């Protein structure tokens, strides 16, 4: 589904991703872990189409097509979703209008009719229940005045609404309590199918008790320095990132 080869990316002349290789197949859950500043959010943003970076080399294929050539909206319409580490507040744009526009743009792309008002509201209700987000939030402007946790929940709500094929969740778990974590996990697990894949970017292995990954990768200083099964997350938790740091010296 996603094949990243030797991806090198810099910003303002400084190289941040230094040769990333990663393959994600349909049906898989991958976790990317790593200390602050290692480039996790940069990788996520590059995949979603943020254009403030220079791509120095490498290729990214998504469903067999060159991803880097496409606009953010084309990627989204092709089923890619990014849950933002820091969701943006957009005063004046209502959640309802935002979601309706997004869903209908995607439907148009697939050659489907726009949802009727009642179909749309039904879908809103269903997904709101799934992620236990209250109407007092979805009746507001996008993320405006939401708490940190509410913003994260709202990312999961949007994901549930848009039903992506490849979801990339950038530290959606940070700052959440156990209950919220369960809800996030429910959102992700609900989407799980042999046709979909998820990349969970996280700092802690806590979330991985609820979303069990097939693969864990350690991103360190712009490179994936270690990959393994779910037990790697436990090892990391136990030994800390210092352990990777010392390992890296030996690479």
């Amino acid at each position: 589904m996603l094949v990243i080869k030797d991806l090198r990316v810099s910003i303002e002349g400084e190289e941040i991703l230094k040769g990333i290789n990663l393959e994600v197949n349909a049906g898989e859950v991958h976790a990317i872990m790593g200390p602050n500043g290692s480039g996790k959010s940069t990788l996520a943003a590059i995949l979603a189409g943020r254009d403030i970076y220079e791509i120095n080399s490498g290729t990214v294929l998504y469903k067999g097509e060159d991803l880097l050539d496409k606009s953010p909206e084309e990627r989204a319409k092709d089923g890619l979703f990014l849950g933002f580490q820091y969701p943006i507040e957009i005063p004046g744009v209502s959640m309802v209008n935002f979601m309706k526009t997004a869903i209908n743009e995607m439907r148009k792309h697939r050659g489907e009719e726009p949802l009727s008002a009642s179909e749309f509201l039904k879908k809103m209700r269903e997904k709101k229940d799934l992620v236990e987000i209250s109407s007092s939030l979805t009746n507001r402007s996008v993320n405006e005045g939401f708490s940190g946790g509410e913003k994260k929940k709202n990312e999961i709500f949007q994901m549930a609404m848009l039903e992506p094929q490849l979801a990339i969740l950038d530290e959606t778990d940070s700052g959440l309590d156990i209950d919220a974590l369960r809800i996030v996990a429910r959102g992700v697990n609900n989407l799980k199918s042999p046709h979909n894949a998820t990349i969970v970017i996280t700092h802690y292995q806590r979330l991985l008790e609820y979303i069990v990954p097939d693969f864990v990768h350690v991103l360190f200083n712009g490179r994936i320095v270690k990959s393994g099964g779910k037990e790697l997350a436990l090892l990391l938790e136990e030994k800390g990132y210092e352990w990777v740091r010392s390992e890296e010296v030996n690479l």
Partner: protein
Amino acid sequence: MSTITENISLKEQFLDLYRSSSKEIAVNSAPLMNTHRDKAIIKLEKLGFPSRGGEEYRYADIESVFKQDMEKSFGNQKININIREIFHCDVPDIDTNLFLLVNGMFYNNGQMLKELPGGIIAGSLSQAAKDYPGLVEKHYDRYAGSSKDGLVALNTAFAQDGIFIYAPRGVKMEKPVQIVNIMISEAGLMAQHRNLFVAEEDAELNIVVCDHSLSAHRFLTNSVNEVFAGERAQINLTRIQNEHNGSSQITHSFNHQETGSNLATNIISLHGGFIRNNVYVKLNGEHAENHSMGLYLSDKGQYIDNFVFIDHASPNCFSNQLYKGVMDDYASGAFTGRILVRRDAQKTNAYQSNNNILLTDDARMHSRPQLEIYADDVKCSHGSTMGQIDENALFYLRSRGIDHREARLLLMFAYTHEVIQNIKVKALRERIDDLVNKRLRGELSRCNNCAMQCG
């Protein structure tokens, strides 16, 4: 009628024009209005036309606007077009009492003044000055008369008619009054109308003014509004400016507020080549509240200039200015917001904010807050921003599958809505939302359709 020649000054030309036309002006107006003309002409002679670089008109090139070749007509107009035919008042979602001004004169369809429910009087100002001289005299030129702007004196000298709206004590207007101000002619034309809106104690007025040009000639309007809000009166005034880009418009609004009154103005500038709006507010009694707001969407070579002057002349008053705009292409403009808090105006709350989105490198905007505060117990704030579209917000929307263009529109629409949401009449607010949306999409025609009526 006169054709402008280059060498004599603008002032001289208009003084001449006054000498040669004062009879005709007077015959086609009302005695009460006529009594103010000579004084105004002397004032104009003293003040002259505002010059560029002066304190009040620093960026607005008034001279070149007036130097355009335009007819001035003071007699009975013969308009060969059936305006009611061009205007289809069949949009059901906004039900108003409609009045027309054509080239500055009340458009007469038999009835010059109407009595609306509750004893509200509305119609031609010159007719009202004849029928209700006492009422008109109490307010006419009382608020504009002390202005130091030569253009206001010019209007007082030449204005023959306009709209008069009067709400007696305690009467609340049911349907809003809509004034459609039309410019239409077979050659370039200048017109100067004069409106007077009066709400007595505890009365309420809702008025919407729409400025339109219906033929493709150069137009210039220099209009004056005097507005009186008696004690605890409520006035909501919305103006939609939608003339073609070959037209120039200068508006002066003098808003006088007594104790406990609440007056809100919203000026929505959609199209028009040169626009200058002067809004003067005098808070003359305690606990008066004023909201002066504006939204401008300018592109191509449009010039938009808003000047607001809030005079806190009494303690315990509140004022809020909010002006926002989107400047595209090589449009240019200015915002000046002046707040004067007089020495006795303790416990004043005065706020001002001017936000601009500049979509291109060539778009220009000058923003000038001017605060003069002589009282010590005052809450006052001002802020001005020049920005671009928020790239992070844009990316966020696009990452959900919304096209670049649509995402931009959503953001701009949200940005403009902050002003529009203050319009109190719901049907009007929705209508303007729709108009602005169309304007942002480039779908709003800028001449021959009345946007309010046929959108």
